[in-house]
């Protein structure tokens, strides 16, 4: 009650202080497409007041009444504009800004948005156009692999799109596509992510200092927004690569009011190799994904967005025998859908209501037919969400940007279901573990508060709850970020965030296989929780258009889970066992604690002919589980002491640009058998204590005490652009792993037949791999 009173009092003061002021509000869009732009800086330099556009391009700035207020609208990669506005009443003013295709640096009165000015720390946004220039495996541009190049983020293994942020596992990342969580962001066992860069407008990674509007995961938020679609003219992009082809179309439905976007891609190796396979043994693999979005501007106050994603991976094998045939399938995929309604209550209060659906499904099937018998097996695992979210942006003055809202999600978990049908009715099985129906809810409020010219803060609070069949959890989650200028363009930053995660991913590979199972927190397997503090220094070197940040962080994690020693995902549950004492997934996992700490250095150049960044991370991750490694601390597999990424892009002229990346990382920590010995035992049923050595066991040392070889690799790409009469053609040639470094993917042991000694063998996946893609834009 006291808190409510204080909040109301604060709001009343804010309203009162705004009486002699008026508000300029509107949307910032891209000239030529009317695409809403996110994070555009709208600033009044003389009044030292500014704001940024939100996810939907909306901005609002309240300033003292004046006959001439100068506003500057500026955004990286776009030409800045100045506007003089008579401010004697609340005004709606939309801005259109033009892309700066020459990538020239344009600084208008030093009003480019600065890293030293932002309160949010541990956050990076990468322009999609840069992502499209960075070389990629087989030419497949991949947002998640670019994110892996940022400090504080590690990849799981060679080629994997798995993202490990500040000591967290891949399940601890909240990956949002137009607000819908994506539960498995991988194609082809993690070698590619499900996100098609052609359909994306923006991507932002937050590693710490999480604003209160985000919740439900411990380690990171990866917020991806799809393009809205060009509202002025039909535009398209088509590309052919080694692995896949893709096509994107966008355009107006009703000019300047409504637009659409459809984008799809599919691999075709299965079709290419099909004619070369034996007639009776056909098999293959493909993936496809499809994005679509529609939006409609009803009026100045109401807008509707409908977007969706659907993707699938499928392995299949068909065999024919003399007296029968067999078919096997492994398929998995995500589907998401978001319906959003923007409503402007007044020039300072913006709202968004979202209805969100997401589903991830894994299916395995096998069919065998013989002349007089058959055997069919179907295995299924699903997680499905329906969510409702209502968020508000309230901008009472340039000194406050308040966000508040509420969200609730119905999660449906079906970890495992299996159906067996045979010609013998007595052997038919339909075993379906009880699904979990759970509700996750949260309310939040946060204020981006300019306390003084030097001090700015984002103070937030979130209340989250989780209700399943019989278990209820309820946690407060305070959040705070501070920025303090210690000199011009140099600021100190600090943040604290407490996060809860009410679902777990059962995975003993850690590389994001589709067989990983999502399960809810239960009374036995509690919700995961983390607390993170971070301290940093941010500096803008305006002369060079370079930003520099140094951050140190410490994160504690509790109730993180792991498979017990000896457990395997192949027998996670005794699904055929109907006894009351049957084993469940809860019996196979154990909970423990983790801590992660380190420092990150990041130098980035976003504009100019030469762009790119250098990132270095020094970090430690340690886990402790009572029932693993005899309770002693150990390094998880993805503990990486040193991690370096160098990314450079250079635009030689309008027709040619080149890009290169180099990465280095300490090898993964794994467990390796080191010695073998006969395990002592004794003959219990004899009268004397006489031993009998019944089996030979391996001695591993401590868990994950062995380091794989260090990882390093260089990739390059060159793009040739040519403007034709009706379209632009882009040809890209890239080389992955330029110096063909054989980075270990995994190790195994093999006994030498001559010496009888074991040899440690390493398997490297990708040697030097050239690639090319051909793209047209029209």
């Amino acid at each position, binding site marked *: 009650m006291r808190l409510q009173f204080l909040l109301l009092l604060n709001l009343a003061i804010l309203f009162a202080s705004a009486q002699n002021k008026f508000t300029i509000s509107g949307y910032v869009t891209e000239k030529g497409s009317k695409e809403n732009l996110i994070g555009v800086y709208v600033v009044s330099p003389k009044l030292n007041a500014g704001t940024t556009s939100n996810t939907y391009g909306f901005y609002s700035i309240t300033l003292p009444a004046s006959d001439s207020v100068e506003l500057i609208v500026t955004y990286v990669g776009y030409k800045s504009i100045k506007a003089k506005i008579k401010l004697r009443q609340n005004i709606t003013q939309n801005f259109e800004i033009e892309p700066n295709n020459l990538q020239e640096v344009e600084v208008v009165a030093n009003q480019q948005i600065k890293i030293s000015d932002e309160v949010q720390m541990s956050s990076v946004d990468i322009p999609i156009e840069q992502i499209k220039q960075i070389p990629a495996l*087989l030419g497949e541009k991949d947002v998640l692999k670019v994110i892996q190049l940022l400090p504080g983020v590690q990849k799981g293994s060679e080629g994997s799109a798995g993202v490990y942020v500040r000591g967290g596992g891949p399940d601890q990342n909240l990956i949002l596509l137009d607000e819908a969580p994506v539960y498995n962001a991988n194609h082809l066992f993690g070698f590619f992510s499900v996100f098609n860069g052609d359909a994306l407008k923006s991507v932002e990674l937050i590693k710490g200092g999480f604003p209160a509007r985000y919740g439900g995961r411990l380690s990171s938020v990866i917020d991806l927004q799809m393009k809205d679609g060009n509202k002025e003219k039909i535009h398209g992009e088509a590309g052919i690569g*080694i692995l896949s082809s893709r096509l994107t179309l966008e355009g107006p439905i009703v000019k300047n009011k409504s637009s659409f976007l459809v984008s799809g891609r599919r691999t075709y*190796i299965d079709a*290419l190799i099909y004619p*070369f396979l034996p007639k009776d043994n056909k098999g293959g693999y493909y993936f496809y994904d499809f994005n679509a979005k529609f939006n409609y501007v009803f009026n100045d106050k109401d807008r509707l967005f409908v977007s969706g994603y659907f993707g699938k991976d499928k392995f299949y094998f068909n065999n024919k025998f003399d007296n029968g045939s067999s078919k096997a399938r492994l398929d998995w995929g995500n589907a998401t859908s978001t319906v959003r309604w923007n409503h402007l209550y007044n020039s300072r209060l913006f709202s968004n209501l979202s209805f969100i659906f997401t589903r991830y499904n894994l299916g395995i099937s096998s069919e065998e037919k013989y002349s007089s018998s058959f055997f069919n097996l179907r295995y299924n695992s699903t997680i499905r969400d329906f969510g409702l979210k209502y968020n508000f942006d309230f901008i009472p003055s340039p000194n406050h940007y308040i966000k508040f809202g509420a969200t609730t999600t119905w999660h449906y978990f079906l970890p495992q279901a299996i159906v067996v049908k045979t010609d013998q009715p007595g*052997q038919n*099985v339909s*075993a379906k573990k009880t699904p979990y129906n759970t509700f996750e809810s949260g309310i939040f409020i946060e204020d981006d508060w300019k306390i003084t010219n030097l001090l700015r803060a984002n103070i937030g609070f979130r209340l989250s709850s989780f209700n399943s069949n019989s278990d209820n959890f309820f946690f407060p989650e305070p959040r705070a970020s501070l920025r303090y200028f210690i000199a011009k363009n140099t600021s100190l930053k600090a943040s604290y965030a407490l996060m809860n995660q009410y679902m777990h991913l059962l995975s*003993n*590979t850690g590389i994001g296989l589709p067989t990983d199972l999502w399960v809810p927190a239960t009374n036995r397997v509690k919700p995961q929780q983390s607390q993170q503090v971070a301290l940093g220094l941010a500096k803008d070197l305006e002369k060079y258009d370079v930003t520099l940040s140094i951050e140190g962080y410490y994160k504690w994690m509790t109730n993180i889970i792991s498979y*017990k*020693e*000896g*457990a*395997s995902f*192949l027998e996670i549950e005794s699904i*055929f*066992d*109907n006894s009351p*004492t049957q084993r469940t997934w809860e019996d196979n996992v154990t909970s423990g604690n983790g801590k992660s700490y380190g420092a990150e250095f990041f130098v980035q150049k976003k504009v100019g002919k030469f762009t790119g960044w250098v990132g270095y991370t020094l970090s430690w991750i340690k886990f402790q589980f009572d029932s693993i490694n005899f309770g002693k601390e150990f390094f998880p597999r993805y503990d990486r002491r040193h991690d370096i990424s160098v990314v450079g892009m250079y635009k030689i002229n309008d027709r040619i640009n080149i890009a290169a990346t180099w990465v280095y990382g300490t*090898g993964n920590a794994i*467990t390796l*058998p*080191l*010695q*073998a*010995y*006969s*395990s*002592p*035992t*004794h003959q*219990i*049923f004899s009268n*004397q*204590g*006489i*031993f009998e*050595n019944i089996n030979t*066991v*391996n*001695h*591993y*040392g401590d*868990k994950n*005490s*062995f*380091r*794989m*070889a260090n990882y390093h690799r260089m990739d390059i790409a060159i793009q040739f652009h040519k403007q034709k009469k009706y379209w632009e053609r882009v040809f890209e040639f890239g080389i992955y792993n330029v110096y063909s470094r*054989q980075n270990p993917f995994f190790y195994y*042991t093999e006994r030498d037949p001559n*010496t009888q*000694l074991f*040899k440690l*063998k*390493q*398997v*490297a996946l990708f*040697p030097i791999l050239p690639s090319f893609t051909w793209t047209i834009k029209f």
Partner: protein
Amino acid sequence: MKNYINICLVLLVLFIFSCTKDANVKIPNQKPIPVVGCFFKPGDTLISLQLSYSQPLYASSPVAKETNAFVKIEGPLDSKILTYNQSNEKYEVKINSNFFQFGQKYSLYIKLSNGAELSSESIVPNSLVSIKSVSTQSIQSNFGFVTYDMFVKFNDEPSLKNFYSLSYTELTKDTLTNDTVTNGTPFFSNLANDNNNDGGELTIKAFFYNNDGINFYGYKLALLNCSKDYYQYSESLNKYNSGSGSGNPFAEPSFIYSNIKNGLGIFAAYTQTNKIYKP
């Protein structure tokens, strides 16, 4: 187009047949490690201790034998020096049946011929534990066959941290002598402790198939009240045998417990109660 298909096929082959080579990394701990095994209980009249070495997996190392070690076991009242027995390659000493006593701590000290020292200790549990009842329950599997759960009940000794192990083996009847014969190695150790049920009735569940062979007689059960070291060692061995030791490449590695300082293996005390059970 044909060239394009060929390029794709070459790339696919590269992708599938990735490069395998000897790993060029330094592998730690490639010197043999001494391994000790010694189990004892009240009533024993012989202490027998196995001392051997582990075999490094990646380095050439002759199988080392340790025949000149100094081995001593010390109890509250007496200590014994064990000597090497060539015939069975173990260190042994005969003792009085009251050398090992309930509730007492026993220490092991070994000095190897290379001067290295090993040590350990274990406490004999306070008492024998008696089996209250044994029952079975049939389990109908989805695939049509029947298995059985066996429930062995006993009372926990209160106010102490207790650990238990149940072993059982099949008994058959010798058709010539009509004697019951223990049939081979005991089944898996089934373990229990008194966490959350101190002083209460405990149950160990075991599992068996129905044996209807003509010579089948029943099961011989051995309920062990064991030291914590014995329990942890057995638990880790069970996990190993059902997990990474079973050849399942997807199983998490299991680590074998050891209470031998500067070595591997186990030095552990227990008490034992036997019972014949005919289902």
